[in-house]
């Protein structure tokens, strides 16, 4: 592939999750040429990994896939997947982004996504796309609805046995690929670098991630997803169908002892959503949500919460203080019940930690854009346009600018697109087109 060393666009979007895709689509629809740079091998971000989404309970994949496809097929959008951003700087009128294309060890132009290599590969590895609960191979398509449908070889876990190369019908496997760097230039950039869950390992009280059957909320998303690791909800220690499932809210938020004092904004609703999906999947199971304040603030959210209560999901006003390994794979939680029940302990088959949201990318040292004390990108005009950063021509959208649910992310992404367009209009007055 002979990529030109420098490619020019109107806008560079960093991050191909739902925020980045929405910004890219809104700009491309206005005629701007957009580059979308994604660190993973597929676009789609966190949303494509979710099961169903609140408050409408529609399938996350069914909402994300069309946006992914529109972006992939849009004549004004170019996708750069599996790429690292080495630096974003302003040089005069332009923004320059130095990009490294990580080697897939598979030629994306030749690969037809047939997965023959994956079937042939003898190395089984934990599939982190499935919360680690199932396996992938050392060469594999990232996930079923990945875009592009191109295999990626994990060189760190490759035996170089040559099986994949032998079976590949298009000779796409290339063990000798090297990282390649190139530059993108544009007049504007949108930072839509998303979030990561706060790590379970940071919370000693909750067992530092070492207690069996204590999982995080994204892992539960996979258990609930229609094409999840087990195709049903089982507890990971031994495959039992859980009878009692608990959610521990604020497991990584509103907690200065973990360094995250802010509210992560989405955990209440995703826990309620998962609880509802669980009560559908396991009608006989007891589901408990331990919470301090239920933050069902969005459109239709409070009603969603009240429905969950009416469905029999139990809400216990308590912050779980401690989680212990119980007998026979069970998990014991200890808490002070704020309803006057005093200090209580309760056993569950499966405990989900509603971990908080951390920024997915730290701009420093790659990009001279400021972050706040919460480490998310600073908004210089939070009231009139939250997407404005302190770097000229650079805008932030979605969870990069603070925890946010999908609904708010999508509108903010549209807003970032319009701000970028405004910036470009100001530097180059629009020509009157015929009405």
């Amino acid at each position: 592939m002979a990529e030109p060393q420098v490619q020019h666009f109107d806008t560079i979007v960093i991050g191909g999750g739902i925020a980045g895709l929405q910004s890219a689509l809104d700009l491309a629809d206005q005629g701007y040429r957009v580059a979308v740079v994604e660190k993973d091998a597929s676009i789609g971000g966190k949303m494509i990994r979710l099961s169903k989404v609140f408050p409408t309970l529609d399938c996350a994949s069914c909402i994300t896939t069309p946006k992914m496809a529109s972006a992939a097929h849009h004549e004004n959008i170019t996708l750069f997947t599996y790429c690292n951003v080495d630096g974003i700087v302003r040089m005069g009128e332009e923004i320059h982004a130095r990009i490294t294309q990580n080697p897939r060890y598979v030629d994306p132009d030749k690969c037809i996504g047939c997965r023959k290599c994956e079937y042939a590969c003898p190395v089984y590895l934990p599939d982190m796309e499935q919360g680690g609960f199932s396996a992938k191979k050392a060469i594999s398509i990232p996930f079923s609805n990945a875009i592009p449908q191109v295999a990626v070889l994990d060189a760190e876990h490759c035996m170089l046995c040559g099986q994949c190369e032998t079976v590949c019908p298009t000779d796409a496997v290339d063990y000798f690929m090297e990282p390649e760097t190139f530059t993108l230039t544009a007049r504007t950039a949108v930072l839509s670098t998303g979030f990561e869950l706060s790590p379970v390992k940071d919370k000693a009280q909750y067992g530092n991630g070492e207690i069996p059957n204590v999982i995080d909320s994204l892992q539960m998303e996979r258990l609930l997803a229609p094409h999840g690791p087990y195709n049903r909800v089982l507890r990971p220690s031994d495959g039992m169908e859980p009878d009692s499932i608990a959610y521990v809210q604020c497991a990584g938020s509103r907690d200065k002892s973990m360094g995250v004092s802010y509210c992560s904004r989405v955990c209440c609703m995703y826990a309620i959503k998962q609880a509802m999906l669980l009560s559908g999947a396991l009608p006989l199971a007891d589901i408990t949500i331990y919470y301090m304040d239920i933050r069902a603030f969005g459109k239709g959210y409070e009603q969603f919460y009240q429905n969950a209560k009416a469905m029999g999901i139990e809400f216990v006003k308590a912050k779980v203080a401690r989680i212990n390994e119980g007998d026979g794979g069970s998990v014991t939680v200890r808490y002070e019940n704020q309803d006057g029940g005093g200090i209580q302990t309760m056993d569950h088959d499966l405990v989900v930690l509603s971990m908080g949201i951390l920024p997915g990318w730290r701009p420093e040292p790659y990009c001279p854009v400021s972050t706040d004390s919460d480490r998310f990108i600073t908004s210089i005009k939070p009231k009139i346009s939250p997407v404005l950063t302190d770097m000229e021509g650079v805008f932030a959208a979605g969870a990069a600018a603070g925890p946010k649910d999908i609904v708010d992310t999508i509108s903010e992404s549209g807003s970032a697109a319009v701000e970028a367009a405004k910036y470009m209009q100001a530097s180059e007055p629009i020509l009157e087109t015929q009405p």
Partner: protein
Amino acid sequence: MILDTDFADEMKQYSGDTALECFNCGTCAALCPLFHDNFPRRMIRYVQVGAKERILENANELWRCLHCGLCTHTCPREADPGEIILGLKQMVVETRRRS
């Protein structure tokens, strides 16, 4: 219950007025090795609402505290529950000595 918002001021001279930062999550009570009757949150809550009488009535409870610091270490609001209890001990000792 008698509410007294000035009690917080009085507490300031002991171990500070961090009791007000507590949002009553109960982590301290559930982690406390004493495992006893909402301790120490009950005491902290009494400080918040200024129920000094309640604290004095139950003052002996305070000396159950081992000052092991687990609650202070894990408090999500960094309200220093252990130090509040120590401050209450001081307050009780000094109140009794004065009387």
